[in-house]
C-alpha cells in the first residue's frame, strides 16, 4: 500500500506529468503534522538569503539553538551573535537584554556597518517589540539596526523567510544607497549565492559581453554592493523564489527592468546571455556565444554515452526544478521524479513546461516516506538534491549528487561540463557495483577475461555502457502503485 492512501490530504500534491494541471496542483500549503518533511522554518529562509551579507552583525534574538543552527548556511560557517534567551527572559521579557546585546555587539565590533536582528519563535510568542528596540538603537548608534521579522512559525515554509529577507535588503540596504544616474553596462544578479564559485563563472560570461555585476544577492552583497544596486541597468533573476520579489520591488521603485534567466545548462545559459546581450544592444556578441556552445558540447561529449538514457530524480528547495530538468535532459538523461520542498505554483508550472517525459512524477513537499516509495517506483540511476536526503538515497542504493553543489561550480558553460563529469562519475562510481559480494566463480572468469583482453590502461566504464546502470540494478522491482 502506498502511504499516500493513508493520508488522503496528500493526494493533490502528487501527480504525473501527463496528468499535471498547474491550477489544480496542490502546493504552498502548510505541511501536515506528523510527517518527516524537509521543509524548514522562516528563520531558516531569512538566513538562507541574509547570511552572506557582509560587514554587518547578525544577531539572533531567541534561544541559543536558533543561533547555533543558523550559523551554518549552505554548509558554510558564519559568525553569529545571539541573545540566548533564558527562562527568566521568557518570563520577564527580553527587550532589555536585546538592547544591551546590540550595544555590546557594536562595541566589540566597532567597524560593523549595521546589525540585523532576527526574531525567532520564542521572541515572537512572548511579544517582543523588536522594531522599537531596533529603531532606538539605530538612532543611538547612528547605524542601521534592522529588525528581520522571521519567527519560525510565521509562514508555511522557508519561502516566507526569503520574502522577509528581500524586503529587509530593499528597505535598509538598497534604499539607503545614494541615488544617481544609471550606471552603464551594469547589472545585478538576484538569487545567486555563489556556491562553489558559480558567481565567478557567471561573471566571466557577462564580462565577455562587457557587463559588470554590481551586486549579487547575496553571493556578493557587502553593504557597498547593495548600496550601488539601485543604479544598475538590469536585474537578472537567477532563482525565482529568492530573487523575483526583490526584482519586482526594484522595478516598481527604481524602474530597473528584470529578466528571468538561468545559467544551468547550455541552452539556458546561451539563451540568458543572448537576452542580456539584446537588452544592452550587444547582439554582435552572439556569434561568440555560439562558439562557446559548440565548444562546450565538444567538452561534454566524452560523458554523454555514460549518461544517455539514465533516469534522474530531483528534489530541490523550490525554483531550480525547471532549469535543472532542462540541463539534465540536455545530457540525454530522463527525469523520472521532480519534487520541491516549498515550490510555488509558478515553479511547478515551469517544471511542467521543461520536463519532457509524461510519466515523470511531480511531488510537492515530499516526506521521507514518500521519497522512499517514489524512488523505489521510479528506480532512478541518480538522485540530485540537498544533504538531508542524500543518506536515505544511499541506504536505498541510489547514487546521489548534492545540489547546491559541493565541489565545483555548475553554472555557466564550464559549470555544465563539471555537472556532466560529476554526474557521470557518481553514476559509475565503483561502489555501486559492490553492494553485494560478487559470486566467486564469476569473479574469476570475469577478471581472467578482462585481463586477457585489455591492458591496464583500459577504462572499465566502457564495459558498463551497454547494460543497466548500477542504480537500477540494486533496487527491487516496482511494488504495485495505488
Amino acid at each position, binding site marked *: 500500500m502506498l*502511504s499516500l492512501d*493513508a*493520508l488522503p490530504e496528500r493526494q493533490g500534491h502528487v501527480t504525473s506529468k501527463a496528468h499535471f494541471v498547474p491550477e489544480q496542483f496542490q502546493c504552498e500549503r*502548510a*505541511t*501536515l*503534522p*506528523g*510527517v*518527516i*518533511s*524537509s*521543509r*524548514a*522554518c*522562516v528563520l*531558516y529562509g531569512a538566513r538562507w538569503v541574509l547570511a552572506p551579507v*557582509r*560587514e*554587518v552583525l547578525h544577531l539572533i534574538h531567541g534561544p*541559543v*539553538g*536558533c*543561533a*547555533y*543552527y543558523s550559523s551554518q548556511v549552505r554548509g558554510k*560557517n558564519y*559568525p*553569529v551573535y*545571539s541573545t*540566548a*534567551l*533564558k*527562562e527568566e527572559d*521568557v518570563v520577564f521579557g527580553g527587550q532589555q*537584554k536585546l538592547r*544591551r*546585546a546590540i550595544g*555590546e555587539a557594536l562595541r*566589540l565590533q*566597532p*567597524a*560593523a556597518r549595521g546589525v540585523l536582528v532576527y526574531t525567532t*519563535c*520564542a521572541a515572537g*510568542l512572548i511579544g517582543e517589540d523588536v522594531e522599537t528596540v531596533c529603531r532606538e538603537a539605530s538612532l543611538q548608534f547612528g547605524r542601521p539596526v534592522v529588525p528581520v521579522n522571521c519567527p*519560525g*512559525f510565521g509562514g508555511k515554509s522557508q519561502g516566507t523567510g526569503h520574502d522577509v529577507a528581500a524586503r529587509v535588503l530593499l528597505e535598509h540596504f538598497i534604499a539607503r544607497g545614494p541615488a544617481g544616474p544609471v550606471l552603464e553596462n551594469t547589472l545585478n544578479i538576484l538569487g545567486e549565492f555563489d556556491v562553489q564559485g558559480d558567481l565567478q563563472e557567471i561573471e566571466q560570461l557577462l564580462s565577455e559581453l562587457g557587463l559588470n555585476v554590481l551586486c549579487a544577492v547575496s553571493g*556578493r552583497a557587502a553593504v557597498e554592493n547593495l548600496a550601488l544596486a539601485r543604479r544598475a541597468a538590469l536585474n537578472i533573476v537567477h532563482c525565482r523564489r529568492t530573487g523575483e520579489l526583490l526584482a519586482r520591488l526594484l522595478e516598481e521603485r527604481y524602474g530597473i527592468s528584470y529578466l528571468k534567466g538561468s545559467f544551468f545548462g547550455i541552452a539556458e545559459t546561451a539563451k540568458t546571455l543572448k537576452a542580456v546581450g539584446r537588452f544592452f544592444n550587444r547582439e554582435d556578441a552572439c556569434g561568440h556565444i555560439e562558439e562557446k556552445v559548440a565548444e562546450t558540447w565538444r567538452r561534454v561529449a566524452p560523458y554523454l554515452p555514460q549518461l544517455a538514457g539514465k533516469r534522474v530524480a530531483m528534489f530541490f528547495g523550490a525554483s531550480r526544478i525547471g532549469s535543472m530538468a532542462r540541463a539534465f535532459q540536455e545530457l540525454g538523461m530522463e527525469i523520472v521524479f521532480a519534487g520541491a520542498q516549498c515550490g510555488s505554483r509558478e515553479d511547478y508550472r515551469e517544471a511542467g513546461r521543461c520536463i519532457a517525459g509524461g510519466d515523470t512524477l511531480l511531488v510537492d513537499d515530499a516526506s*521521507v*516516506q514518500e521519497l522512499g516509495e517514489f524512488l*523505489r517506483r521510479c528506480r532512478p540511476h541518480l538522485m540530485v538534491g540537498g*544533504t*538531508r536526503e542524500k*543518506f536515505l538515497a544511499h*541506504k*536505498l542504493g541510489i547514487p546521489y549528487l548534492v545540489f547546491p553543489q559541493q565541489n565545483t561550480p555548475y553554472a555557466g558553460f564550464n559549470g555544465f561540463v563539471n555537472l556532466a563529469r560529476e554526474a557521470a562519475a557518481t553514476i559509475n562510481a565503483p561502489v555501486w557495483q559492490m*553492494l553485494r559480494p560478487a559470486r566467486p566463480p564469476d569473479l574469476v572468469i570475469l577478471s581472467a577475461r578482462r585481463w586477457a583482453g585489455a591492458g591496464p590502461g583500459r577504462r572499465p566504464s566502457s564495459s558498463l555502457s551497454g547494460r543497466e546502470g548500477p542504480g537500477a540494478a*540494486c533496487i*527491487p522491482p516496482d511494488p504495485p502503485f495505488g
Partner: protein
Amino acid sequence: MSVKESPVKEIPVEGITYDQIKIEKIPATPAYIPRDARLIPAENRAVVINPGYTCMPLGAMLAVLGVRRAIPFVQGAQGCTTYVRYTFCRIFKEPAAIATASFHEDAAVFGGRRNVVEGIRNLVVRYWPEVIGVVTTCSSEIIGDDMVSFLKMARKRLRDEIGAEKEEAVAIVLINTPSFAGSHVEGYNRAARAFLETLATRRTRPNKKINIIPGLVYPGDIREIKHLLQEMEIVGTVLFDIADTLDAPLHPPQSLPYYPPGGTTLEEIREMANAAATFALQPEAGGAGARFLERRFGLPAVVGPMPVGVAATDAFVQALARFTGRGVPQSLLDERGRLVDAMADTFHHTMMKRVAVFGDPDTALGLTRFVCELGMTPVAVAAGTPTRTFGRAAQAIFAEYQHLFLDQPKIFNGGDLFEFEEYLKTLKRLDLIIGHSKGKDIAGELDVPLVRAGFPVYDRFGYQKKPIVGYRGAELLLYDIVNAILDYRYPDDRTQQL
C-alpha cells in the same frame, strides 16, 4: 604555451582587487582596534557570540534515535526539526527520521492540540513506529500546551482509527525540553529520565544485568563500551544505543519505511528496572536517569566520570567488576598495557605541550584528565554548558597533576567560543586545541592544530566511528594528538625527531 608551462616566479600582488583574492572571512573590525576588555568575559555580556552549545531538543532527539524503531516527534516549528536533521546528517552521515508537528500561526494562536492529535495519527499510520518520543520546544512551552492531555486525546484518536491492539503497541514518551531552560546536554539528560520514568516502571525479576547510559557520545564509543562489557562477560543494556541506528551498513534493498538496524528495544528499556546497577558515563547527560532508578528501585547508580584515559577507564572497569563480581580479564589488561606503552613511547612529543580543551562538560573533563596523564600542560578548559560541578571537578584534576605545570589553567564554566578564543589569543604560546568542529575557526585564526573530539564533529569523516572511551579509544585519541603535533611544524623544539 610557454606561459602555461613556466612556473610562476613572483606573486603578482599589484592589480588584484580585494574581491578576486579568495578570502572566506573578512573581519568586520580591523585587527588593530583593541577590544573592550570588560566585554570579553561572557558573564559581563548580554550578547552570546558563536555559542558552543545548542538548545535542549537536540539532545532529546539524539536520545530517541537510539531506540529501536523510534521516531522523535517535535512539537514546534519546522525549523526545530529540519535544522536538527541537517545537523545529524552532517555528523553521522546517516538519514535521521524526525517528524515535525508543523507549527504555524494557527498553532501559535490556538495552541498545538490539533498538531499533536493529527500529527501522532499521521506518524503512526505512515511509519508504524514502536516508540514515539514527543519532544517539546520553546514554542509549545511558551504557549503552555498541556501535552499530557493532548497525548491522551491523540491516543484516543488512534484507538478509534486503528483499534486498541495496534494503538497499545505504540509507546509514547513525553520529554519536556523548553529550549531556553538548558543546553542539549540537559535535553539528553531529560530524555533518559523520561524514558525510564515512562517505561521502566516495575521491578519484577531482578537480574545481573548492568545498565549503561552513555551520554552524548558516538557510535564508536558505544561499541567500545560494549567491547569492555563483552571482555568482562557482563550482560548490559545500553540506553539510547546509537551504535547501529546512526552507523548503519548499506544493504539495499531496504524495506520501507526505512528503519536503521539496532537501537535499544522497548523490552530492554522496561527490563532496565530489573538490573543490578546503572552506569551513567556522563553525569550531566544521563545522570538523571540513573538517579531515578536509584531512587525508585534502589539500583546502585554509578554516575561518571566519563571513561577517557587510563585512570577514568580503570575506575569504570573496577566499578563494573565490583557490581558484577567479575574479574578483569587478561585481554583488558593487555589493552591497558598497550595504551600505557603508547603513552611511554610518545611522551617526548606530548610532554609540556600547551593545550586548550573545550566541549560538553563531561567530555571536556575526560579529555582534560587524559591530556594531564600524557604530561601535557592544559592552559584552558571550557565547558559549553555551565554546570554546578564543572569548576570543582576541573580543579581537582589540576590539583592532582599540579607538579606538572606552574600556572593555574583557566577554567570556563559556560561562556561562548568568542570568550574562549579571545583568551587563547592572549596566551604567549599554545600548541594544540582539542574540541569539536565549532573550534575550527579558532584553530585557524590562532594557527594551531585542532584535534577533533566531542560533540559535534561534522567537518571530518570517521570521527563518529572512532572511540575516545576505553583503553583502545584512548590509544586512538593519543595517536590523533601525537600526529597532529607531528604534522604541525613547531619552530622551537624537536618534534620532527621520531
